[in-house]
């Protein structure tokens, strides 16, 4: 109760009450040992005495290690920048779930018990689906920075994400592609034995219908298929304006390669699985002309993005990818939420995260919608000269 009073007081800047609770507060719920988690002031002037404990669960080894590594860099860059601003300090602990949902569960348990104010991660959606309920039950807010599967935020009101879902990106992709290429009829191909690609397909089908694009044929395959020549020949026969594909990167590369081999040179519009630099690395020239929606526009000239690119390159001597950008944005959003209520109590962060609206970020004007999902403009990219360029 005392904590709550303080939060209210701080936000309202009632001087009298401030004096009585500005220091010596041990942090509600006994969740913190290093000092008070509520402070005085708000926004930039917010000052919290103790370091705010933030846990991050990333896949630093195992199958998703390449994503996790980018995320770690993004988080550490953001943490370094936040350390230089006055008022609030963060104690960021990054742990490795080894791309194993069970390990993610263990780490979530640890963070919950160690009093983390918020947990960032985990890297993969399937780990999120299993680990997030632990934080939800304990009332610890979670911010996903790369989960794109449907249903993750439905786990509960403490689960947020700053990563755009495929369902948010695909309609924008189709709308843009229709405008650019004047699509009238297309062939849709998807692997029907994978939950992610199937939900991607459903989003594509709905978006195509909204745009009034006719689907002349729908072709299914298995996620383990590697020879698509027969299917592509079938697609070719209806002479489509584009081929729309919902597949993981493993299938995307041979599919694109073989399509070009067969002389199919219409645009290939891909789902989230195509949003991977490996597409260009592995398919080479065949990847040219592939269109894919993404959450982060690396060439956006908004000041936050330019500053991020510069800082990242100076720190790591490498170009950031979308995972780094979303991770970086994630910690910045947490800072935003903490400062909004000038409290790093779990409930205060949960409330403030939900109220984030039109915050300028690396990803563009960013809001959290009523489903606790990210809401910001997507970017539609096309592969040109071996790199993603903005389609325009």
């Amino acid at each position, binding site marked *: 109760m005392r904590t709550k009073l303080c939060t209210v007081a701080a936000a309202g800047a009632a001087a009298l009450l401030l004096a009585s609770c500005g220091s010596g507060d041990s942090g509600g719920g006994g969740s913190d040992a290093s000092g008070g988690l509520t402070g005085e002031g708000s926004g930039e002037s917010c000052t919290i005495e103790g370091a705010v404990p933030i846990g991050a669960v990333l896949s630093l080894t195992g199958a998703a290690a390449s994503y996790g590594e980018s995320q770690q860099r993004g988080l550490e860059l953001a943490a370094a920048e936040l350390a230089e601003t006055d008022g609030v300090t963060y104690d960021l602990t990054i742990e490795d779930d080894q791309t194993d949902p069970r390990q993610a569960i263990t780490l979530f348990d640890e963070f919950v018990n160690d009093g983390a104010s918020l947990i960032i991660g985990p890297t993969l959606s399937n780990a999120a689906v299993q680990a997030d309920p632990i934080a939800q039950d304990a009332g610890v807010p979670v911010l996903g920075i790369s989960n794109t599967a449907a249903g993750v935020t439905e786990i509960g009101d403490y689960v947020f994400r700053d990563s755009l879902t495929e369902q948010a990106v695909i309609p924008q992709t189709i709308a843009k592609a229709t405008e650019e290429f004047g699509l009238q009829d297309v062939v849709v191909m998807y692997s029907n034995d994978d939950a992610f690609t199937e939900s991607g397909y459903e989003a594509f089908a709905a978006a195509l219908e909204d745009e009034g694009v006719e689907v002349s044929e729908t072709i*299914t395959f298995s996620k*383990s298929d590697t*020879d698509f020549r027969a299917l592509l*020949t*079938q697609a070719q026969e209806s002479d489509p304006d584009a081929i729309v594909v919902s597949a993981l990167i*493993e299938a995307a590369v041979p599919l694109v390669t073989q399509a070009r081999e*067969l002389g199919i040179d219409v645009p290939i519009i891909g789902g989230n699985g195509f949003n991977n630099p490996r597409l260009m690395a*592995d398919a080479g020239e065949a990847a040219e002309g592939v269109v894919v929606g993404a959450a982060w526009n690396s060439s956006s000239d908004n000041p936050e993005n330019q500053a991020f690119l510069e800082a990242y390159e100076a720190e790591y001597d490498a170009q950031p990818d979308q995972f780094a950008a979303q991770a970086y944005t994630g910690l910045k959003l947490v800072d935003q939420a903490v400062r909004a209520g000038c409290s790093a109590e779990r409930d205060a962060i949960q409330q403030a995260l939900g109220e984030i609206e039109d915050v300028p970020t690396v990803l563009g004007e960013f809001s959290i919608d009523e489903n606790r999902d990210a809401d910001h403009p997507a970017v539609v990219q096309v592969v040109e000269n071996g790199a993603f360029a903005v389609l325009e």
Partner: protein
Amino acid sequence: MQQLLNGIFIGSIYALFAIGFTLVFGILDRLNLAHPAVFAASAFVGIELVERGGLSLWAALPLVFVVGGVLGLLIERLAFRPLKGRADAHFAGLISSIALAGMLIALLQWRYGPDTRRFPPGSFPDTRFEVFGAQVTLVQVVILAVSLALMVGLTYMVTRTRLGRGMRAVAENPTAARVLGVDVDRVTAVTFAISSALGAVAGVLFAINVNTAQLGMGAAIELKGLAVIIVGGMGSLPGALIGGLLLGLAEVFAVQYIGSSWIDVIAFGLLFVILLLRPQGLLGARKVREV
């Protein structure tokens, strides 16, 4: 036309895989389920040789052939020979070869990780031809040619050479073969080596053809390889080739005329029909065991 060629090329991959498979299965009567693992391992080894070793593909292929042969010797030595004296040697060997396959895949995962890998772009000339308006790549032509050549060469070897006669004698009756002066262990080992070497070449060509090498690539083709062997006729090398082509064509025409979701139902359904009509397989001889 394009679909017809697609079917022939998919089919020739199945055939290439099945020819190596059937050499041990059909002739020695041993089912070597480590064959699909060799198929996958060789693709990864081939990629490593080209990518790290800087070899051209033409130099890497013979090396992969040798690696496959060595793996074949290992498989025979570890999974089959220790069990040969047992009354249930066939099943015991089958199970121990599955175990060996599991170990091989685990080693690959340890060495290369679970990611899909592929030959670096340009390691094989991406020459394309146009045949009657259909697109054909050089790799596909090579695969078809290699399958045909192997089928002819191996058939000759099995029917005409001393080694081939040894193989057939061992298959018929190991004890009698030994009495007649056939070195049973040597013949068996050599057969495994040739079989696995062929599986290895098939793995590399497959990986180039679809621009993808995955740990599970062998498992994905294993069932089709077995089906091809049965339909073609146990131990018949031309049968394996024809069975492979037939399966490839069936799949392609299932896509063309019925729908992509029905590929497996149609293709395997057709195989069942063939087996009902001709239980010994297309080119298989009816085996008569005399008492």
